[in-house]
């Protein structure tokens, strides 16, 4: 697919005598990317070819449509997932969850997973979470707390980043 769609040789030829400017676009390899190969049909007679070609500018370009497609799709799906999760947190989560019992302030500890601050996982203290769900739950709780703390620092107290 690369040879057919992802390379081009583009020659821009300005107006010359009575010939108007023209852009030529062709699927040729880098080696053949020059005026003589790309400009077809040649609008000038044989002895003028050189002068005309001197004015033209040919540029060889390559791209990868697959990379572009994949990147855009990844990006959009991440944004979509984040939006869904946000919607979940805002709309659904408060409904299925009891009121939040953790109100004490605590430090931001997302960065350090070494930090197993007990305060962040109070429901699990001393015991071990057995199901995957509970673990995810715990992690989510901890993370939400950290974000809350960050939000307080940045948006409410304006202690940082302002």
């Amino acid at each position, binding site marked *: 697919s690369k040879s057919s769609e992802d390379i081009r040789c583009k020659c821009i030829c300005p107006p010359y005598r009575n010939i108007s400017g023209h852009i030529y676009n062709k699927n040729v390899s880098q080696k053949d990317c020059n005026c003589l190969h790309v400009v077809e049909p040649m609008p000038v007679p044989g002895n003028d070819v050189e002068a005309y070609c001197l004015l033209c500018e040919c540029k060889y370009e390559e791209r990868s449509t697959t990379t572009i497609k994949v990147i855009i799709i990844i990006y959009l799906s991440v944004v979509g997932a984040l939006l869904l999760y946000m919607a979940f947190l805002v709309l659904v989560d408060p409904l299925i969850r009891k009121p939040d019992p953790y109100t004490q302030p605590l430090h931001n500890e*997302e*960065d350090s997973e070494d930090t*197993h601050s007990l305060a962040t996982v109070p429901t699990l203290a001393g015991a071990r979470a057995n199901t995957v769900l509970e673990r*995810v739950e715990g*992690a989510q709780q901890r993370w939400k707390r950290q*974000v809350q703390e960050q939000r307080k620092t940045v*948006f409410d107290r304006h202690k940082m980043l302002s």
Partner: protein
Amino acid sequence: MDQKGYRRGSFQSATSDEDMLEIAGASMDFSMADDDPPLDREMGGFSSYNGGGMNGTSTMMDFLEEPLPGVGTYEDFNTIDWVREKSRDRDRHREITNRSKESTWALLHSVSDAFSGWLLMLLIGLLAGSLAGLIDISAHWMTDLKEGVCLAGFWFNHEHCCWKSNTTFTDRDKCPEWKSWSQLILGHGEGAFAYILNYLMYVIWALMFSLLAVLLVKGFAPYACGSGIPEIKTILSGFIIRGYLGKWTLVIKTITLVLAVSSGLSLGKEGPLVHVACCCGNILCHLFTKYRKNEAKRREVLSAAAAAGVSVAFGAPIGGVLFSLEEVSYYFPLKTLWRSFFAALVAAFTLRSINPFGNSRLVLFYVEFHMPWHLLELVPFILLGIFGGLWGAFFIRSNIAWCRRRKTTHLGKYPVLEVFVVTAITAILAFPNEYTRMSTSELISELFNDCGILDSSKLCEYVNDFNSTKGDDLPDRAAGPGVYTAMWQLALALIMKVFITIFTFGMKVPSGLFIPSMAVGAIAGRLLGVAVEQLAFYHHDWPIFSGWCSQGADCITPGLYAMVGAAACLGGVTRMTVSLVVIMFELTGGLEYIVPLMAAAMTSKWVADAIGREGIYDAHIRLNGYPFLEAKEEFSHKTRAMDVMRPRKNDPPLTVITQDSMSVEDVETIVSSTTYSGYPVVVSRTSQRLVGFVLRRDLIISIENARKKQDGIVSTSVICFTDYCPPLPPSSPSVLKLRSILDLSPFTVTDETPMEIVVDIFRKLGLRQCLVTHNGKLLGIITKKDVLKHIAQMANQDPDSILFN
């Protein structure tokens, strides 16, 4: 701490990637099963970050001296002790070296340990380059999305959409596959209604993007907002901000950066890319024990990551390394120089292999021209330097004033509304003017570009004389009507950019400053360049032009003026010097422009420094009160250590602990009645002779632990910091020996030491505190915060602005 590893493996492993890795790291600790759940519980109360570092080495070391978990770690918003971290790393290194002689496995371990730094750099380069490619491609696409959509595949931006189609010479931007919104909705793209519809769509998309960005930032990672460079500078100088370089920050910053750039706000992606690269560095540090567990080593990695970030932002690996060295880093050993360079190169090559712009260049505004310049042109270049300096100083002042207002008044309460309003204003003002409608990078690219005969842009609408067929070598020509229109539009764009950027930088979306600064400078430079060009064209008989700019010669390159202007403005705002020139050199690839660039950058820096000493990043650091000890500024006041140390003259005496006469209860009283982060230990209160220094955190942990685990430790037990504790009567409770947590080599200075030397010591050695003595007697203490407050006071600033330790 073994049970910590165990516990982690048992019920928390699935929560994150790093936890998964922790298991692997901790598994070798299982051999020593000293499982004690109650301690576990207690320890959890402290942020035992890095406690594992002691853990890793302790298994190799004397079991009896094994430090407690939590001892030797830091709390959030505190400064690390470089000396301690570095010597801890050396201990670790020593252990590995010693053990490498014992077994083949240990030898392998030592080799892999030595190469882990390089591997880490490779990974950082790959990740940072890939993310930069993702950001470039997505931002390009989303920017074009504001104007229309590609029918051949929605994922193509305008240029890629028209990749194959044969466009005509006059309308080279149009192609059948690309549909503007009006074409898509109305079926045609002409007329007032279509224009209004496009206008509306442009504003709506811009608003949508920016709102989405600010909501994501607010909802998931508040730390992802802003440029990030001031905070990274502070972190690299030893400050701890947990979560600032975490996973969520990385994801959200990457995502919202694309949104913010695409929304057409007056901001760039360069500063945030540095933050993104540092997040990559920090996250990848978790893969390697050596870096995960040592704050100082980790900062070396972050320095290199910052270099990789600039490298991909500007396609300038050497410039990136120098930027990291000059602007960002604090502790930059030469080993890091080499590694940074490697990381920067890998990142640049990764990005090149992704090829985001389809032309094998890493930045949109890469230029390659080799027109000579004349010595007399240095006059306009220096004028541009002065403009850049003035703009830089003006920008810093107004932006800081606005940010202070946002920080202190009710304005800061409505971040989302603020973003909405600013985006709306920007979008509404930007659309009518084609130079503000296009993305700022494209604008810069067009301004840097030297007009060839083939350029279709309005800026290149000169009165052509097609008789000469010399190809690229065009003489200076008279400006056509297009150029004059472009000049007006550029002037308007300049005014708009100048003002809107002040309000944009500091909003709660990721926002870099390089691109808007460069745009302002490039516009000013291009305006001046065209003016000089036309002056030389119409007045080539003037004595100043004769000799080098005769008729028909190509002597003025307006693109060069734009480049010089961009460098000047960037220099005025950031006060970069060498790195700026090297970045611009790498952008143009020609040594011949170093002199103009240097002249402009130097003038700009001098002018801006004359108005206000600080660059934008330092100004923001001061605004936020981060504990950053500027390494570039010399402290030049004639104060002495005794003027700065605590306690001051009328304060109560320094809180000290005696080495072998205080009971657990006494110490606990002291700890609970004060908030100091450490206490000097003296021989006796009367002699005040210094023995060592003990950290509050270590003290609390050790006492609590001893009360739990050690028999006979009660409130009346004597705490003994000496090697051999004095024999006590048999009836008394047993002695608590705490020598292991005592720092026996605290830094001391005499009270007569000039503060300039003290500042130097703090800066170069990265101290947290320093004790002050007089004739061998302990007098007081100076902490980093005291030093910062003193510097602020001496500079006639509010010393209370320093908020953190």
